[in-house]
């Protein structure tokens, strides 16, 4: 409905825009903006959009009409009195006619009226009232005012308020309020997409209305998903979204947000095989960049550049996971792995001050170190004796200082030198057999842990302002003594309505953390080069003082070096625990300011700016008792007769690291949301975004630092000094100063539009162009256009749809392209400036990081997604089924080169991965009565493989344990492949494989077998995984337990490799069951031990198929129990009160496929202890 006198302006504006556009050729993304704007100009109208009916039949009964209404709209019709004659006949001629119109037409003539409550139409006879009679005489103008909200009190801006009688309409303002002219007796109709229409009759004495609209169908459909750019009601979303609400997030206790979404999100798998580096995979792998598979994390509107662990989960309202291209491609080059949008709690509603409080304690016992698989101490001692006899350690005795050797080796050496006799030596050694260093570690290095969490939140509203303040405090003790962390979070969120059209939003988050990491290490630490702590070492002496271990130097050296003129040169772990003073702290401030202006009822302009800065520092003060300081000072100490000269000052050494991260982003965005002619609805956004993240750091070392006076003694970095006894030759004193500075910049233009016809069909499209400085100086590679299209068909709204048992059925289809960001790649030769402290010349120098790569491109991920949403049995069961394919192309991967060119590998766009999979979500209400039992089943399947790999690696003898991404054509990049196992040689216990189909011990030949002759088991990450979550409520008790399952994957069990055992001292229990005499091969697959060990033989056994097991398992990991005090109890001032307990890391294996008795999640390491939490939540 464009009015003629508006048209010239349209053209004028467009003309201006085109002119400006020409001036900015480099950034064609603007076109989208122009298109959207032009499009929007054509739409000026306001009518209601409601449930519709299609029915064409002459002379049918009202009863039939009502039946049809029920079928097509899901609305029940109730007759208020028997007087209503449903056999009255009408002529129906409706084609997508709004329900209210149908009812008006059918009922008016029979003097019937109706009201709509939730999903029910109540039909009654019109009672003639006085005002009606008056109305016919005088028409009194009334201004009807009011506010439209949803059932929880949130204002609904943009709802249509229509005076049917007068045929005028307006939209509600941003705060949901409206005023419309009417006369008493006029019928006013209030509608809002996704909600039931409400109709009322204007009465003279009642001009203010609070209208609460109920949403259409089940709760599933109330879902609004947030993409970080806009809120999309799920009924109009074409893409694949998964939403986690506050309730689910709060049924766990943890200081961080990631552990709250794990196992609760469809399609999301967290690979925790490397405890240091949890890797988040959303729908599999779509990049080969190291650690590049994590989804983009967005906090409210901007990517979160800080440490995700700093976000207080108590501040989170909901999380939307964007899985396919239509959902995520609005995020462009960073969306290839999907996007996780975290939405914080906002000040909402118009309530009075409300205070909520949450506090809990989590307790866990110290870990059981004996749960770790390790070669028994006594066997290890026997092995050392054997190696000593064969002369393995002889080389160590030629070296004056390093490395240290174990007590057993020391005893044997002294016995050989005649310092001990056979009896003394045996006695000394046997006394070690009963020891296990794990006892001392458990006693002195570990502790039980207690984590505390407190959170308080205040929210309320005035007439024009809504506000929220929150404060949180977390204190976590690590299982390792000496390590702990604290976190304080403060948050303020407020919204101010400056005018009815103009709104300001502000959100400020302040996070402060501090921690200590004074533990010298735990089980598996204490390694230096080839040397590691002996399994029978003691951490304390008989008198209880900290014991020394010979890790870095041998005992003879540390006993005698310097004849007392040097500082003590021994390393004692417990002394370190007491001495260490390693502190870290971080302050993070995030300010998000937004303003929105409603230019027209259907057009809103948003401008947002976010500034985030974090300052972190780590200080590592090595006092004179610390090993690091003593060792470093000793190394340079010069002794001439009685004169002792310290080249490194004999004082503390301070290592410090300071980092400053800054992120700034601003975004201008136009939001268009409009419906007209009751059938058409367009919602679109377009905008421009500029973002910058920068990082500065300074690493420094201060010698001779005195923390009391803050004075530093200067040292000479420019000359070489001889080290003590020449142990390290001549050395410079290391100048640890290092600066880094990085800046990443992005300019992006984006647009997203969806069109819905008749609430039945929705089409969506999005496009985005990103430009960045990341790829270096050449501009030609900087921009990449990414896009998506999608469609939604709500089948149950079709007139032909007859399935009463399935009231909802939607079909969604999308396709699109998003990207991956490969930072630190460049088309040109890349060099790096390096500090003098890392140079043997003590000069600043330049490294060449990469050869030129003129063909570098951005990685692209092309995703197709098909989804079905359904509800069954009166919405008792709701769910969705999705199928998708993802092709990730131009993946940057390290390509093996002919080393003659001077680089062994180069990163090139060389690989593609193809993934297909499906996500199934089924929520059901199994029992609904006094006992309420709800279930939520998540099932995900994802299968991916490398489909292109230029310059593939040689696949002769390819074996893998799937621990890291390794692309092999036609296989999963995490595939486990093994040598085929032919059993042990019955003569000597050698492991046997196959060469050309025959059992063989030619390990070199076996290692050349083509991959076709290897055993390829499957992926090391589960292709099938999910959860079954049950909540049972009875009275005020609620119990939730979550069973996780993972199928279809494999693991390689750790086995003793004799080379590794001899070199590094690392071995496992299977050493005990090794082949020792003929016949043993019937009971064991562990080969005989041998020396000198043959690396090829050991690798063959380690990577043979006999050590691969199925990892499939089902586990019960967590149970949550809560008790609600009902408000009826009337505790003064308390609105609600809840107690809860939570058990986590239970690790109860309900079923597992492997017979080896191994928990595939805890293969190499210590079993994590179960954690128990108890807490209280209250609202005042």
């Amino acid at each position, binding site marked *: 409905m464009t009015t003629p006198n508006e048209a010239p302006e349209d053209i004028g504006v467009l003309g201006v825009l085109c002119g400006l556009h020409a001036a900015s050729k480099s950034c064609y993304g603007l076109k989208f903006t122009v298109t959207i704007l032009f499009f929007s*100009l054509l739409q000026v109208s306001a009518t209601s959009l409601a449930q519709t009916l299609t029915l064409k039949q002459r002379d049918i009964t009202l009863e039939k009409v009502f039946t049809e209404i029920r079928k097509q709209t899901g609305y029940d019709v109730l007759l208020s009195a028997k007087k209503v004659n449903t056999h009255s006949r009408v002529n129906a001629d409706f084609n997508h006619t709004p329900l209210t119109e149908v009812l008006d037409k059918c009922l008016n003539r029979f003097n019937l009226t109706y009201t709509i409550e939730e999903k029910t139409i109540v039909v009654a006879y019109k009672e003639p009232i006085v005002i009606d009679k008056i109305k016919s005489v005088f028409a009194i103008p009334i201004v009807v005012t009011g506010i439209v909200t949803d059932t929880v009190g949130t204002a609904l801006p943009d709802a249509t308020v229509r005076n049917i009688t007068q045929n005028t309409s307006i939209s509600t303002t941003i705060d949901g309020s409206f005023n419309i002219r009417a006369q008493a007796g006029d019928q006013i109709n209030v509608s809002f997409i996704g909600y039931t229409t409400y109709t009322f009759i204007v009465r003279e004495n009642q001009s203010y209305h609070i209208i609460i609209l109920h949403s259409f169908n089940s709760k599933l459909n109330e879902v609004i998903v947030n993409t970080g750019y806009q809120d999309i009601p799920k009924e109009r979303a074409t893409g694949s979204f998964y939403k986690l609400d506050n309730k689910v997030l709060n049924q766990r206790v943890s200081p961080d947000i990631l552990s709250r979404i794990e196992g609760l999100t469809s399609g999301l798998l967290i690979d925790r095989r490397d405890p240091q580096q949890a890797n988040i995979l959303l729908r599999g792998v779509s990049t080969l960049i190291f650690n590049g598979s994590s989804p983009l994390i967005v906090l409210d509107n901007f990517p979160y550049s800080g440490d995700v662990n700093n976000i207080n989960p108590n501040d989170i309202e909901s999380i939307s996971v964007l899985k396919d291209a239509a959902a995520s491609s609005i995020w462009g080059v960073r969306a290839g792995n999907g996007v996780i949008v975290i939405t914080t709690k906002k000040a909402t509603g118009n309530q009075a001050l409300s205070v909520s409080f949450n506090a809990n304690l989590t307790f866990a016992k110290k870990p059981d170190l004996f749960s770790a698989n390790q070669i028994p101490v006594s066997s290890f001692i026997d092995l050392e004796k054997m190696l000593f006899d064969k002369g393995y350690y*002889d*080389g160590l005795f*030629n070296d004056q200082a390093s490395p240290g050797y174990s007590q057993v080796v020391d005893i044997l050496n002294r016995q050989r030198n005649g310092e001990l006799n056979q009896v003394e030596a045996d006695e000394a050694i046997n006394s070690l057999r009963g020891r296990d260093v794990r006892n001392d570690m458990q006693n002195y290095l570990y502790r039980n842990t207690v984590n505390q969490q407190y959170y308080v939140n205040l929210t309320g509203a005035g007439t024009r302002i809504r506000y929220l303040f929150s404060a949180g405090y977390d204190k976590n003790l690590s299982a390792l003594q000496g390590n702990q962390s604290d976190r304080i979070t403060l948050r303020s969120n407020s919204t101010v309505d400056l005018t009815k059209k103009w709104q300001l939003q502000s959100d400020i988050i302040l996070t402060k953390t501090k921690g200590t990491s004074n533990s010298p290490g735990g089980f598996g630490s204490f390694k230096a080069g080839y040397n590691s702590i002996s399994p029978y070492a003691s951490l304390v002496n008989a008198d209880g003082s900290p014991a020394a271990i010979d890790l870095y130097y041998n005992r003879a050296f540390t006993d005698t070096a310097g004849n007392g003129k040097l500082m003590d040169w021994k390393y004692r772990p417990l002394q370190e625990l007491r001495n260490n003073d390693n502190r870290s702290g971080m302050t993070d401030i995030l300010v998000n300011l937004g303003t929105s202006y409603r230019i027209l009822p259907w057009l809103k302009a948003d401008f947002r700016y976010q500034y985030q800065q974090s300052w972190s520092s780590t200080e590592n003060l090595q006092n004179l008792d610390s090993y690091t300081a003593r060792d470093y000072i000793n190394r340079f100490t010069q002794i001439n007769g009685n004169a002792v000269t310290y080249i490194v000052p004999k004082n503390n050494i301070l290592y410090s690291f300071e980092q400053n991260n800054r992120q700034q982003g601003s975004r201008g965005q136009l939001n268009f949301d409009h419906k007209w002619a009751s059938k058409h609805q367009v919602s679109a956004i377009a905008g421009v975004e500029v973002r910058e993240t920068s990082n500065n750091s300074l690493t420094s070392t201060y010698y001779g630092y005195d923390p009391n006076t803050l004075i530093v003694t200067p040292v000479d970095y420019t000359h070489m000094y001889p080290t003590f006894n020449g142990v390290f*030759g001549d050395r410079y004193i290391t100048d640890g100063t290092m*600066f880094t*500075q990085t800046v990443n910049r992005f300019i992006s233009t984006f647009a997203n539009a969806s069109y819905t016809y008749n609430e039945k069909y929705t089409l969506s499209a999005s496009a985005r162009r990103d430009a960045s*400085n990341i790829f270096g100086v050449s501009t030609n590679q900087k921009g990449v256009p990414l896009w998506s299209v999608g469609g939604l068909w709500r089948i149950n709204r079709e007139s032909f749809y007859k399935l009463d048992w399935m009231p909802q059925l939607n079909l969604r289809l999308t396709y699109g392209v998003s990207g991956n960001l490969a930072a630190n790649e460049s088309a040109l030769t890349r060099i790096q400036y*390096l500090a003098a402290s890392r140079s043997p010349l003590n000069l600043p120098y330049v490294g*060449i990081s990469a050869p030129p790569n003129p063909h570098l491109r951005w990685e692209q991920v092309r995703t197709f997604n098909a989804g079905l949403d359904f509800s069954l049995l009166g919405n008792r069961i709701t769910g969705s089924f999705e199928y998708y394919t993802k092709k990730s192309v131009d993946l940057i991967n390290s390509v093996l080169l002919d080393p003659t060119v001077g680089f062994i590998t180069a990163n090139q766009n060389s690989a593609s991965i193809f993934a297909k999979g499906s996500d199934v979500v089924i929520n059901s209400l199994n029992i609904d009565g006094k006992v309420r039992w709800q279930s939520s089943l998540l099932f995900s399947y994802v299968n991916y493989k490398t489909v292109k790999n230029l310059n593939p690696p040689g696949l002769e003898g390819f074996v893998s344990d799937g621990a890291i991404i390794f692309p092999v054509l036609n296989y999963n990049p995490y595939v486990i492949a093994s040598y085929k196992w032919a059993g042990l040689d019955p003569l000597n216990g050698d492991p046997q494989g196959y060469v050309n189909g025959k059992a063989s011990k030619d390990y070199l030949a076996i290692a050349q077998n083509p991959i076709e002759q290897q055993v390829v088991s499957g992926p090391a990450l589960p292709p099938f995984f999910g959860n079954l979550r049950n909540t049972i409520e009875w009275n005020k008790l609620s119990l939730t337990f979550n069973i996780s399952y993972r199928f279809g994957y494999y693991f390689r069990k750790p086995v003793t490799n004799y080379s590794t055992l001899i070199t590094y001292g690392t071995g496992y229990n299977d050493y005990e069951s090794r082949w020792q005499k003929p016949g043993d091969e019937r009971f064991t697959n562990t080969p005989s031990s041998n020396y000198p060990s043959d690396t090829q033989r050991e690798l063959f056994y380690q990577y043979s198929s006999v050590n691969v097991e199925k990892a499939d398992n089902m586990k019960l990991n967590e149970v949550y129990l809560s008790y609600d005090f009902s408000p009826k109890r009337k505790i003064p001032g308390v609105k609600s009160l809840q107690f809860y307990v939570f058990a986590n890391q239970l690790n109860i294996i309900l079923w597992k496929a492997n017979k080896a008795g191994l928990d595939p999640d805890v293969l190499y390491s210590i079993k994590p202890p179960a954690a128990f939490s108890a807490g209280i939540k209250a609202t005042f």
Partner: protein
Amino acid sequence: MKNQQYSANRWIQHTLFMTVITVAVFTSCNKYLDAKPDQSIATPSTIEDLEGILNNYNFVNAKYSSAPEVSSDDYYLTGTDWASLPDYQRAYYTWQKFNGPIGDYTSPYSAIEYANIIMESLEKINGASPVRINAVRGNALYLRASYHYALAQVFAPAYNKNTADSDQGIALRLTADIAVKPKRSTIGENYNQIITDLTKAAPLLPDYPDQKFRASKPAAYGMLARVYLAMGDYGNAGKYADAALKLYNKLINYNTVSTTATIPFRQFNDEVIYDSRTGIPPALANTKAKIDTLLFSSYAPNDLRRTVIFKTNADGSRAFKGSYTGVNNASAFTGIATNELYFIKAECAVRANDISIGLATLNTVLSTRWKTGTYQPVTITDAGVLLKTVLAERRKDLLFRTLRWTDLRRLNLEADHRQEIRRILNGTSYKLEPGSPRYVFQIDQNAVELGGLPQNP
């Protein structure tokens, strides 16, 4: 409608405002995006950048191959120590073929790539002083030549002037472009290129080795002397050794060196003209590698080298500690030092029958190696006998510099000097005969498989 009209005008104003902002942002966007993502990362664009690359000691000076030393006969291993070695080291020690990816091949080529990148980047640099540009180019040429030479000692047979134009040499890399496929050249082409690069480098380099990790004129002449010696071109070898010594000829009197120090020599000591090295593989660690007993017993009692460059192990065997790298014992010197040049000069003089110069040169070096007052000058006048003495003293002075391997290969071409070397390990005897194909190592397996280069026999 009027109301709507009014709103539409307002809206137009807002849109215009937003558009102006947008355009303003975009017109400056190219500049905005030119910011370096990491201040420490760049593309080489200044002379300082290239000098910085030359300061990258580990990649520029320390990428030489240690394989020839592992296979040489100056040391031996016990059976248990041998057993504890990685497989490729065991194979090198016993002169067995080893196929695989090896750093001995890849490391020198990576240094050559650095040199090529430096030379190609130099073309794009403006405004730097010619002296600095010359020095950088001279260094890059020197590096390329010396690494090509080092590779030729390991992966190609010894230079034989009769067959040089047909013998398969190493691949020469003369470009930084990794897309240019490498091809193996003939030995003749190898040595031609090496000599060309060094001859071009010499005039660009400074006369005096101020910074010994950088190449200088005496370094380039010294390297030419070494290359000509390996080719058996004794005339040129002597000429260049002499030219180098004319510019720099300091010797260390071993009487001034500590005999007890773990590391007796300093880095950049007086004899060093150009400092470079190879990392020490496990086989050569001085806790394992024991000095050949015959070799050790050939040092006279008053020869200071017995105590300066060797230490005695607990079991009475000897280990080497006299590396000129001066930093620690985990590296072997491969650079140019004056003692090597004196020995080249002496050998070439004797071979040219210039006995007096030969004797004088030899005595100049040796007199610094003996206890003060005990040195008896060599007075042999028979050229054949004197040559053997010079060669024996050369071996004794230039231990663990990867020179022995080249000497063995070169001398095996001469009837008077050829010899078979042997090792005994766990009762098994291994031998390496003159002219054996095992004098040439297998090239990296990836070069064969990915680059299609022919493997050595």
